């Protein structure tokens, strides 16, 4: 599976990616704080950096999960919603802060099955799959 990455030189800080991500999760709710990614303000208004799940080789989220609910499937770390207890340890372990709790369970980027909604929502080509 290819990897999603964000480009600060293209990002305008519009955050449509966050809205699309939250809508993908909920179907009818727009809430940037439910997005499984974030837009980092690089200060003084000069730039924004889209931060997305790195699908790490050494995934702290998976390693810190007390019930082994996070598994690698073809290069993408996926949270088993039945096993997840919503304890939130993976949120704290993730240095990129791109895991959120929704309906009592942890949720993270699964690349929307290969066609990320965030990338589709970006009008500025600041997100790419490579």
């Amino acid at each position, binding site marked *: 599976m290819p990897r999603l990455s964000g480009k600060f030189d293209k990002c305008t800080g519009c955050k449509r990616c966050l809205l699309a991500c939250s809508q993908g999760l909920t179907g009818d709710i727009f809430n940037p704080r439910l997005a499984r990614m974030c837009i980092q303000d690089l200060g003084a208004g*000069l730039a924004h950096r889209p931060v997305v799940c790195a699908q790490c080789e050494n995934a702290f989220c998976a390693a810190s999960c007390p019930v082994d609910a996070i598994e690698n499937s073809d290069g993408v770390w996926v949270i088993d919603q039945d096993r997840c207890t919503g304890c939130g340890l993976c949120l704290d372990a993730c240095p990129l802060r791109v895991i959120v709790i929704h309906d009592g369970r942890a949720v993270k980027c699964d690349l929307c099955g290969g066609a990320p909604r965030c990338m589709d929502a970006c009008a500025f080509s600041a997100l790419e799959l490579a």
Partner: protein
Amino acid sequence: MSYGWMGSLLHVNLSDGSIKDVPLADHIREEYVGGKGFGARFLYDMVPEGADSFSEQNALMFLTGPLTGTLAPAMRGCAVTKSPLTGTFVDSYFGGDFAHEIKFAGYDGIIITGRSPSPVYLSVTPESVELKDARQLWGLDTFKTAARLREAAGTHHAPKVACIGPAGENKVRFALINCDPNRHAGRGGCGAVMGAKHLKAVVVAGSKGVRVKHGGAFMEAVNGALAEMKDNPYILAFRSDGTPGSVPFADLEGLLPSYNYRGGSFKQANRLDPAAQKAEFWLRDAACFSCPIGCSKVGMLKRGRHRGLVTDVVEYESAGMIGANLGIGDTKAVAYLTYLCDALGMDSISAGGVVGFYLECAERGVWGNPDHRFGDPLVVEQLLFEVAHRSSETGDLLAEGVKRASVRIGRGATDWAVHVKGLETPAWGVRGAPGMGLAYMTGDRGGCHQRAFPILYEVGGEYWKCNPVKRLDIEGKAEIVSELQNYLAGLDTLVKCDFAQYGISAGSYARMLSEATGLEVTSSDLSTVGERIWNLVRLFNCREGFGRQHDSLPLRFTSEPLPDGPAAGHMLDEESCGKMLDEYYRLRGWDEQGYPLPATLERLGLRQSR
């Protein structure tokens, strides 16, 4: 369950410190939708006739629309209050993140009444709503204020901030509210009202979501709007050049004010256009929340006295009013002076109008320092500080706005005071565009280009209802102006972006609104809502004593022929103005004095308001 709307308003009374949630009534949603509509209704109902704008009787509101906070492209918010500059209703719009965050905090709007005994700021987090001491922030500029408040809140909440600078604190009558990040409720002195209330800032962090009624159909409507925008030439131009893309057009057509509106073109206009700005500082595109256009350009000045300053695009209005109107043809200087207006917390349109007026006074030897000349950025810089702090006799006088300053100076100064109802006019001359003149005359908040922009049809070549429009004609302009005012007021309930609406059809706006809220709304419904609002605001202004005699243009436009451009020699004399006004009142269903007729109010469901 509430769809589109959050269903609640936050009401804060600064006099007694009370804070309460007020449910949003169903009929208010249906009749007024949001934004400007809510503002018109609430201001009319809450602020008594004749209330001093700076008194605790005045209300200041931050309002959103049902599409704010969603993927509907480029929605915004507005500040509404009784203007200390004009004494009319004023609605001032801002992009950025702040309005959306109000929705995420669970509110459709924040209504501030009363006056705090000492400086405070309002803090809204998922855990609490409280007033906090702002004495340590009093005196700070807008950028430092916002940075301090963000720092104090920490990264956990990452709040959005709306705040005032020294100009607002000192009740400069055209002070703005700086909304995260560096977007402004600029016009009409909303920041001065905030200062009078001793409210330094509103800091909002929310954790709720905006729910739409039909998720799938709503996204289809959004994608339809995006498809319309994609290849629209106006949208493409905003994306590549931002609003200063209009500088060459306005200069060529004699619409760009220069030297306190004496001229309609500027020899150094090419030093303020997108190419000049790009060469001096642009680094990247920036966009307001949920905007796919990105008309803002951010960068760092690479030369000159202010080398290293990180700042935003010099918008068309600032290029016109701080640049051409003050005779300054230097992007670097204009970028810095505009930044200074933002930091001190003053509307750069009014600031350019006020300083231009002063420089003409000085040139004529009527007031001020006779050595002060047009074209000197250092003089302007000094004046901006003096105005924001009211630290000199001239600064204190100019802080009152062009209208009051000209009356106090006397000696004929009102002859070159360019304003309508006290609002300094924006950077679009009207002597070669009569419809634009009518739009200024009848603008609900005074001389404003955003309530209707007939220049697009008169000069820009767009057809009106499939017919070309003759530029200098007087007849027929009233229809264009009144219908644009209705339609745009309707969109200002959502709350639309002025630039995005160039690329989004009325049908798409109505579809997005319908799918988000579950109400069946057509594009003509939007215009009807707009007409209702326009009449309600007129009732507010009439109640404050405004009428036909105030629907007028400054002497410069009615008796001094335009010296340059394709419409050279033209002006909008009193007779032409009167004709347009008669036609306009007739179309609106108002009497000869500009008061809405009973049948008009009844048709719009405003009967109970009288």
